[in-house]
């Protein structure tokens, strides 16, 4: 009996020894932050903001889709199906046929989700005295990114801008299981405008000294306001915003070697207003693999559009073994076609302002032509300025210049869509079956991904899919 008592004591002792059990079960992740303790300091908010900027990588898809769907690209010599269905306007809502055009839908919403998650914590972190301005700048960057995400979604998955038409779901708080309906384009746009103006109000005025093109700041947000004003046909605002950016003279037009170096990241202080920084993953690989396989090539139409003496011909188009390739993002000091996405350049501001002048109620053909001439003079050696007799001529010239200047930067197809113009490819670029996309085709509004339709009964598919 005595022994039995001893045994009971022993057993209890052993259980006590293993009283670490509670701790054994209380395991926190060591390689990741758990949601609950991710944000305790402003530095961690900064990390979250950086993570959000990382998700601007969805813009790579924007560039890819614009090239595949427009007349600036053709399938390359080594293409074995990459982007082919999209190029042939045979895309659908399904991942098997529409992966190229539906990928950005999740991409932008994952940016928005990251923003909303960090925004939800930004006022909860303990900050040191004097850190408030930095916090407000970070808040501004988050709001700016959220606006850009919503804007790019509208560009892809909604019609030409009309406030009454169906837009995309406006997501302002993080919610994994919500099933949001689509807001109108006007509702989404109102939030975009609010987010951008709030963002700018939280940021110090841009100066040459404080300007950084890898993050959002007062200057490039103004640039986006110009782009968006043009998108929603608010031409006077577009002129005003573009003028602010141009007059700041922080990133003037580049010429010569400096211009060519923009595309190799050899000289990062030229022209670019906003870039998505890359140091490991390939961007140029969208067009040409690291091994040199050309999947997507510049169209003959694009190559032929450059006049002799146009620096862009060399800077944008390369040739190997008789095959043209996209020289933008091709060469990289980091190897592997690792290159930053140039999401906004000063050249676009001249083009926005020129187009806006031409589209004003009373077109201003002189100032519009002046912007176009300024840009061309920087690109074409021995350029002689031209004048335009009608607004239509000027608009056509601006669009042609955008085609040449902004090729493979994610503009062409959206420019055609914005201006209600068809895609018209050359016979040497495409089979007859996919040489054109009429302006009235349902395909200008890209399909909402099938996975969204399945998981969200409250959403609607775009017509035709």
């Amino acid at each position, binding site marked *: 009996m005595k022994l039995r008592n001893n045994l009971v004591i022993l057993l209890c002792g052993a259980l006590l020894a293993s009283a670490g059990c509670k701790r054994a079960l209380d395991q926190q992740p060591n390689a990741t932050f758990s949601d609950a303790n991710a944000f305790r300091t402003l530095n961690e908010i900064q990390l979250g903001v950086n993570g959000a900027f990382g998700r601007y990588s969805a813009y790579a898809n924007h560039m890819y889709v614009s090239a595949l769907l427009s007349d600036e690209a053709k399938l390359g010599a080594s293409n074995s199906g990459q982007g082919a269905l999209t190029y042939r306007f045979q895309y659908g809502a399904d991942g098997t046929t529409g992966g190229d055009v539906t990928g950005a839908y999740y991409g*932008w919403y994952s940016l928005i989700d990251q923003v909303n998650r960090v925004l939800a914590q930004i006022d909860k972190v303990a900050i040191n005295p004097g850190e408030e301005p930095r916090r407000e700048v970070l808040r501004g960057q988050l709001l700016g990114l959220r606006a850009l995400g919503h804007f790019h979604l509208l560009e892809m998955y909604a019609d030409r801008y009309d406030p009454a038409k169906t837009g995309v779901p406006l997501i302002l708080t993080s919610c994994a299981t919500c099933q949001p309906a689509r807001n109108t384009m006007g509702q989404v746009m109102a939030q975009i405008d609010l987010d951008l103006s709030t963002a700018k109000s939280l940021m110090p005025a841009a100066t040459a000294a404080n300007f950084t093109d890898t993050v959002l700041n007062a200057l490039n947000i103004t640039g986006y306001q110009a782009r968006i004003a043009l998108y929603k046909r608010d031409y006077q605002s577009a002129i005003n915003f573009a003028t602010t950016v141009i007059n700041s003279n922080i990133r003037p037009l580049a010429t010569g070697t400096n211009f060519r170096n923009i595309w190799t990241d050899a000289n990062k202080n030229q022209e670019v207003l906003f870039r998505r920084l890359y140091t490991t993953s390939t961007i140029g690989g969208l067009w040409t693999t690291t091994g040199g396989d050309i999947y997507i090539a510049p169209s003959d139409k694009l190559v032929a559009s450059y006049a002799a003496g146009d620096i862009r011909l060399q800077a944008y188009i390369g040739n190997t073994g008789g095959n043209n390739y996209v020289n933008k993002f091709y060469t990289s000091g980091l190897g592997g076609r690792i290159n930053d996405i140039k999401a906004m350049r000063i050249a676009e501001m001249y083009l926005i302002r020129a187009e806006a002048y031409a589209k004003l109620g009373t077109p201003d053909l002189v100032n519009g032509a002046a912007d176009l001439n300024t840009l061309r003079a920087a690109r074409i050696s021995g350029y002689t300025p031209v004048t335009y007799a009608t607004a239509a001529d000027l608009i056509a010239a601006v669009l042609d210049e955008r085609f040449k200047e902004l090729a493979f930067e994610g503009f062409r197809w959206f420019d055609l869509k914005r201006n209600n113009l068809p895609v018209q490819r050359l016979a040497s670029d495409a089979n007859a079956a996919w040489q054109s996309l009429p302006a009235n085709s349902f395909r200008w509004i890209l399909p909402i*991904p099938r996975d969204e339709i399945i998981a969200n009964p409250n959403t609607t598919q775009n017509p035709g899919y």
Partner: protein
Amino acid sequence: MRKLFTLLAALVLLLGQVFAQGNRTINGKVTDDKGNPLAGVTVTAVGSDKRAISDEAGSFSITVPEKVKQLRFSYVGFVLQDVVITGKTSVSVKLTTDETSLSEVVVVGYGVQQKKAVTGSASKVDVKKFANLMTPSVDKQLAGRAPGVQVTNSSGIVNAPARIRIRGYNSLNQANDPLIVVDGIPIIAGNLAATTNSNAIGDINPADIESIDVLKDGSATAIYGSRAAAGVIMITTKKGAKGSAKVTYDGYIGWNSVAKRWDLLNAQEFVTISNEKLANAGQAPRAFMDAAGTNTDWQKTVLVDNAMVHNHTLSFQGGTNKTTYYMSLNYSQQQGSIMSNWNKAYRVRVNLEHEANKYIKIGNNITLSRQEDTDQNTGSNSLGGAIASALRLLPNVSPYSSTHPSGFNIRQPAANAMENGPNLQGVDDNYFNVAFVLANNKYYSDKYRIINNAFVEVSPVKGLKYRSQFSVDMLNDYSFQSWDPRHGDGYSGNGLVYNANQNFFRYVFQNYINYNKSFNNHNFYLTAGHEIQNSKTKWVTATGQNVSDMFFIKENVISGSASTQTIGGSYSKAGFESFFARLNYDFASKYFLQASVRRDGQSSLAPDKRYGTFPGFSAGWRPSEESFWKNNPFLGKWFTDVKIKASYATVGNTLGGLPYLSTFGAAAYGNVNGIAVNAIGNPALQWETSKKYDVGLDLSLRGGKYTLAIDYFLNDVDNLVFAVPTPLSAGIPGNSIQQNIATLQNKGIEITVGANLINQKDFTWSVDANFTKVRNEIKSLYDINGAQTQFVTSGNYNLIKVGEPMNIIYGYQSAGVNSANGNPMYYKADGRLVQHNIANNTFYYATGKDDNTFPAANATTMTFNDRVKLGEGIPTWFGAITNSFGYKGFSLEIMLRYSGGNKIMNTTRQEALMSQSFHNNGREILNRWTAPGQITEVPRLVWGQGNNINQNNLAISRFVEDGDYLRLQNVVLSYNFDRNKLQRFTNGYIQSVRVFAQGQNLHTWTKYSGTDPDNISTGGVDASVAPQIRTISFGLNVGF
């Protein structure tokens, strides 16, 4: 010498007797039932503390007080025997083998049970049956050994763990692997090395294993609670026995060859076929024979033929009155079917037990193991994949070259391709020269393992035992990989070196009691205790690309030798805490009841969901113990032992990681550090739960001459974790949230039959057979706003569909080949015949199998909705039949194994053997359609149209084949030298000698056209995996 010793001993004893008044000496000899002397038998004088141990001749001598009337003879594995010594000075004792202690005890969780008392379902694997087979690890030998246990060695990769499924697949996307418990401790298992296949179970030397018990039903496994859903495999290692030391050497040497190769085109056939492919695509011929008539069999550069393998174990066991030990040393070298794939193991075990006093026993079991593994690129479509390239490389091109400095055929100047040889082009897709790749790329892993298990057992009063054991399991993997910059995978990155160091650490601390109490035929047996387990996993990797010189890619990453450098690493922890109890009751060995409960806590679940309770119940009745049965002349004579049993339990399947938490992970923005949300958790997550039902009947006829066991089982699995889709607009990682939502069911029957057909003095013949049939059915998946989801796709070929078993193969129904034009034909879902016009890649409705018209109005498409079920990917029935013969010293064992009910999607055939690119092919392609009117199953060849003609990445019935087979798994012939003669000839130094000749995987009867019907994934897909191995080996056991 020996005689002299005995004489001296007798003299000493005699003297002792003179001085010890009132004592007397008894001499004698102990033998087994065949008359062989038994050494190490403990002889106790009943009623005194006098003891003696028999020597190697079985002789003993014991001095006992006069009052002692009986001697007790005890020896592990033999029935305890008491012998009356009144009036005797010498006795000779024949001990009989104790079936109960060796084979009739089942190791259950935290204890053992008499087999007759087991009311759950557990199978004992007869370890002796495969103890002498050449094998890298024990898991590979379990196939066919127990009913309900489906074991698939899905390739000839020697270090890949076998896939073990107990009573079917119980989870859709969590682990389906059984819990492996060694000497009471759940050990780390799996394929864990960073750069090679590896098998953590291989750290247990198969020769060290005393017994394996497989716990299958709910009641047997419920004591393992939340970790029991996939069954439990209990491995018990050998212990020493009291008595003089026994030294044993087991050595095997063998030769591994590929059991079946692919039947590929020779060079001349390749030229014909390739040029026909090209001609049909409007291209001029590009394939030619060279003057030398080069005819390369690329399989010879990859697959092994008569590769030598060997395995040596030296073991020592024995013990004194207080201490027993078992110790073994092992070296094993095994070879897979691909030349670069081998495994070397160096294993040491020491099992030690010591009785400190009559209350306390202490002990320690330790395993030290090192495994070296090498491997290769096994990608089924990789350009450097060993099999993928061997099947496609051109047979009229030589692997070697006298002009390239490497000695291999590589294009100069540098381009990542082979020379064309006599052809006008190289192999399409630029498959790498596999001979170069295997010779120069390296995949190597070096692993060290320590499993130590220290315990103390306290037995304070009769029937009560308290055991406390602490175990540490540590596995360290140091892996290395290098890719040669000159050619192959390493070319584009200008060489690659990679090191990974992984450390897996786990401790388990168990404290439990076993208590039994019997009175008036009522027997109680109680087990209760507590267990805690803690695991840590950490790893670090370093990768260098753009290597400065080939010199630096030999053995390890070298500082500063590569200009592109990447590091990686992570760290994770997990914990379990459990309380458990089990009560067994039986009345007169007639009526049995068992109840058990386990309460588990798991760190991967949210704090308020962390604990779960898993109860189990079972009951049994042995009518054969009833007097009416025994007294009935018919029942009593024929049905010697009959047991009817039933059980029910709820058990769980654990979740890995921390799936309840939403987390942010490192997410750099360019070269700027950042964090971003990388997982969305579900705090409501819990275990997947299995409700397991089992009813069974165990019969023993004619005193055990015939045995029969039948079990019917039903397993309702619910709360299956499934990633339920969330709207993409939520923007969360993976676009889904894991929920406990899906349900499935497994039900089936297991039958085991045994018969000792002939049991004569010189000749014995027995048969053992088992059969299992399992039906798996998905009961439900998930719903979105009330709309039930009926199916989800799983990869390219499989569908998870409500009402069907997991992983049905799903695709187009082929309708042969159009005899007019050679186009492949299909049936649409509505049964209408269509032909796939390869010329314009369009489907047309066809009026018959010779319709050569393509009116635009008949154009149609084949869509997802035209896919139909083409078969089940998982075998539904399987088993084995073993015949054992004995004739004098010879014994012969023949094991046949069978499996079937499944279909195999043969993508090796679809993508490689029938490739329409400038690749080599299988000989089936010679049956291609060539002329109108020809009836064949192989469509017209068109170069570059493989994706269209063969529908790559989609199942079509043309490539879906029957998976049924019967295999001559093992034949083992052995000869046991006569023990007495042996001892006489060797003066007693050698106690026993056995020699073996064995063959494994000798023949397979199957309609399957691939290399082996076991070469399948869990979805039933055969994707260019390494062929199976055939082993012929010879062995020697010597006991000293």
